[in-house]
């Protein structure tokens, strides 16, 4: 029979909800079975975050929090990222034993992890105790005026303000009295003299029935404008307004969003008008979008009915981060420059070891695509004024080569205001970069996948914000979106002009497409094709395509990598890859053509990834093949369609391209000298990398 410790360890090995709750369950079992010490000793032989977490909890219970401190240090994710709860435990001990700087550093790191509401509840009292050491940027007076209970929002805002070095002083308007507070004289708001007035209303405050009239919408817009005017007149504050999120339920089952007079559409219309009418001193938060991307429900019916909480507690940190981003932007405390590590931060792999062909950036690697997307995201940040700089331990030439020569890089050398790829300590690089650019360290964020680099920079330069990210690109973007440290108050005229010209172009595109022919469609795509002979750089992807392409595959003959390498011999084989890009995306290396040379060329492989099927790329491939066959003096090209259960798509490929049946089953032949080379005017640009 298994011992209690073994059973509990098996619970830890199959976490059900959150790691925290799994550990709590294990603790509960260990106490019931009176095997805390035995379990603790056993866990010493186990790796992983949850085992370390359980062990630290047990040591804390058995020997006290001071003994447990080094055990909490070992609680990190499998990619070396700190865990907020473990940081909080260490911060508590540090604060209690008088190590204030440590406590502050641990707390701010934890609070910058994009933590949830429950964590903030656990951290709040400690954050408050550390207040004198957290505040570096003075006081900020925030009035909360709403139609719901604002006490919990206040708690969350308080934690986040202190994290960012601001000492918040709050005024909470009496429950439900927002109109009186904002419009009538003599209420508490006047005396408080806020720097910021946050108006938090919800859809219930809009007097909109399920079917509304335009006059009702106008009326509600006018009412909110009056509230803003009241706040602007009474106070010198910036007004922050939360846009209205439509209710989750709709008795008209979605029909009311499709009609302009429906309530859902009307609520969106109110928001749109308010954004247009917003004066300079009013910032409208996009809560509709927050609600859409929030991973739980924006409102909780029970929390509303029992405590008049809006939004739900799980949404409070998201909302508070938005409010705070406006506060920081107004005070000029937001960050301006992203310091970027390279290997496993901007691409997968290590350029110095894996080389240009070995790093993962762009298709076909799924992770490579996410890194490419991250680069596009960062590029878009530069168009609204965010600065990028490289700080990486690398040979400068290796690092630069990616931005100069990698076919999937979105970022180019000119996108960086500084490029520090060398073997100097990062903190020293960052310090000298700040001097060169005349920017404060407190305007920097460092994105780095290496736990030791993060720790070192945080220790040396505490003003630089160093988030706990693993380097997984989707996590990096999520962190930037969640904490909004790069927020600005508004887009500049230049930004919006740029955006509206894009919008216009896009509109025209939609119009044309809707009435267009296939040719127009292909022209619109502005396809660029790059092609070349299969070489060691491309052999991996080519082998992969040969083995996984099912639909557009003329013969479906599978090759090992060695088979492919054998055919990398231009004297005997015509062996080409094709890479496709269009105005929307880089599809990567997506097609392969293989023919045996001789007086008659034999088509051995012709295949294409399904992401670019239906774009007549086969015509381009035939043109390439035919050119080379003509030049080599071949008389014909022979090909055969080998049917499988999945490749009906290419049944007529050869006859469609001018091949004629040669009498054998599914066999075709093309007269090389007589056949015209297909015109491919829909290809905007083609570029040969072939050594001919």
């Amino acid at each position, binding site marked *: 029979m298994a011992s209690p410790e073994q059973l509990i360890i098996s619970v830890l090995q199959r976490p059900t909800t959150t790691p925290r*709750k799994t550990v709590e369950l294990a603790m509960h079992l260990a106490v*019931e079975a009176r095997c805390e010490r035995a379990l603790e000793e056993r866990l010493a032989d186990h790796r992983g975050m949850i085992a370390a977490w359980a062990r630290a909890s047990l040591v804390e219970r058995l020997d006290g929090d001071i003994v447990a401190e080094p055990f909490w240090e070992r609680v990190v994710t499998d990619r070396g990222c700190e865990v907020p709860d473990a940081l909080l435990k260490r911060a508590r001990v540090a604060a209690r034993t008088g190590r204030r700087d440590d406590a502050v550093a641990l707390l701010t790191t934890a609070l910058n992890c994009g933590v949830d509401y429950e964590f903030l509840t656990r951290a709040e009292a400690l954050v408050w105790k550390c207040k004198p050491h957290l505040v570096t940027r003075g006081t900020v007076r925030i009035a909360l005026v709403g139609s719901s209970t604002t006490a919990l929002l206040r708690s969350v805002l308080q934690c986040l303000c202190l994290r960012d070095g601001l000492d918040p002083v709050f005024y909470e308007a009496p429950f439900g009295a927002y109109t009186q507070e904002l419009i009538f004289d003599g209420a508490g708001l006047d005396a408080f003299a806020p720097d910021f007035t946050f108006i938090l209303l919800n859809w219930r405050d809009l007097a909109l029935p399920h079917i509304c009239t335009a006059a009702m919408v106008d009326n509600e817009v006018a009412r909110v404008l009056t509230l803003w005017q009241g706040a602007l007149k009474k106070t010198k504050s910036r007004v922050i307004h939360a846009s209205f999120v439509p209710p989750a339920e709709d008795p008209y089952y979605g029909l009311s969003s499709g009609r302009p007079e429906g309530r859902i559409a009307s609520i969106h219309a109110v928001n749109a008008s308010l954004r247009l009418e917003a004066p300079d001193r009013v910032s409208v938060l996009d809560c509709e979008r927050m609600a859409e991307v929030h991973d739980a429900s924006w409102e909780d019916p029970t929390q509303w009915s029992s405590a008049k909480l809006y939004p739900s507690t799980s949404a409070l940190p998201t909302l508070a981060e938005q409010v705070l981003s406006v506060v920081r932007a107004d005070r000029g405390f937001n960050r301006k420059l992203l310091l970027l590590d390279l290997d496993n931060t901007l691409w997968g792999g290590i350029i110095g070891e894996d080389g240009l062909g070995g790093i993962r950036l762009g298709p076909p690697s799924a992770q490579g695509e996410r890194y490419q997307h991250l680069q596009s995201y960062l590029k878009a940040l530069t168009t609204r004024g965010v600065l990028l700089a490289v700080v990486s331990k690398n040979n400068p030439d290796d690092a630069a080569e990616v931005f100069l020569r990698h076919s999937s890089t979105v970022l180019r050398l000119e996108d960086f205001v500084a490029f520090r790829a060398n073997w100097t300590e990062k903190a020293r690089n960052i310090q000298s970069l700040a001097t060169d650019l005349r920017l404060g360290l407190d305007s920097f964020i460092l994105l780095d996948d290496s736990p030791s680099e993060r720790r070192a920079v945080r220790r040396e330069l505490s003003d630089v914000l160093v988030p706990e990210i693993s380097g997984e690109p989707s996590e990096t973007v999520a962190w930037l979106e969640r904490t909004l440290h790069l927020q600005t108050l508004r887009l500049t005229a230049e930004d919006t002009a740029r955006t509206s010209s894009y919008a216009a172009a896009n509109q025209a595109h939609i119009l044309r497409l809707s009435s267009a022919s296939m040719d127009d469609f292909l022209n619109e795509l502005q396809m660029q094709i790059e092609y070349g002979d299969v070489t060691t750089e491309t052999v991996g992807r080519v082998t992969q395509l040969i083995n996984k392409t099912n639909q557009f595959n003329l013969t479906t003959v599978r090759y090992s990598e060695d088979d492919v390498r054998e055919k990398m011999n231009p004297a005997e084989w015509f062996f080409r890859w094709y890479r496709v890009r269009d105005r929307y995306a880089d599809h990567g290396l997506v097609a392969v053509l293989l023919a045996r040379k001789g007086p008659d060329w034999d088509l051995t492989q012709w295949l294409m990834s399904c992401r670019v099927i239906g774009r007549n790329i086969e015509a381009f491939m035939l043109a390439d093949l035919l050119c080379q066959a003509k030049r080599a003096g071949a008389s014909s090209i022979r090909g055969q369609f080998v049917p499988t259960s999945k490749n009906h798509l290419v049944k007529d490929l050869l006859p469609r391209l001018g091949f004629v049946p040669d009498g054998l089953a599914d066999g075709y032949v093309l007269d090389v000298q007589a056949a015209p080379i297909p015109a491919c005017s829909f290809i905007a640009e083609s570029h040969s990398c072939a050594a001919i």
Partner: protein
Amino acid sequence: MNSLDSVQSIFRDIFDDPDLEIDASTSPGDIAEWDSVAHLKIVLALEDAFDGQFSASDLTEFCNVGDFLRALENTNSTVPVR
């Protein structure tokens, strides 16, 4: 570790006091920082920890820790049959 232990660890976090000892009779009168906002936070933290939801009418009726413990027993899905 019974329910009281779990409730105690939540109290210790919320009031940042590692030595706080509570029992069924502990009430807002015993902890200076236990105001109405803290009360709401305790309720929400308990709901999260026990993956349950108190009925809305319970919230205003909790007068001490014992009331929380009884309510937790009712939200738990397994109750011994006598």
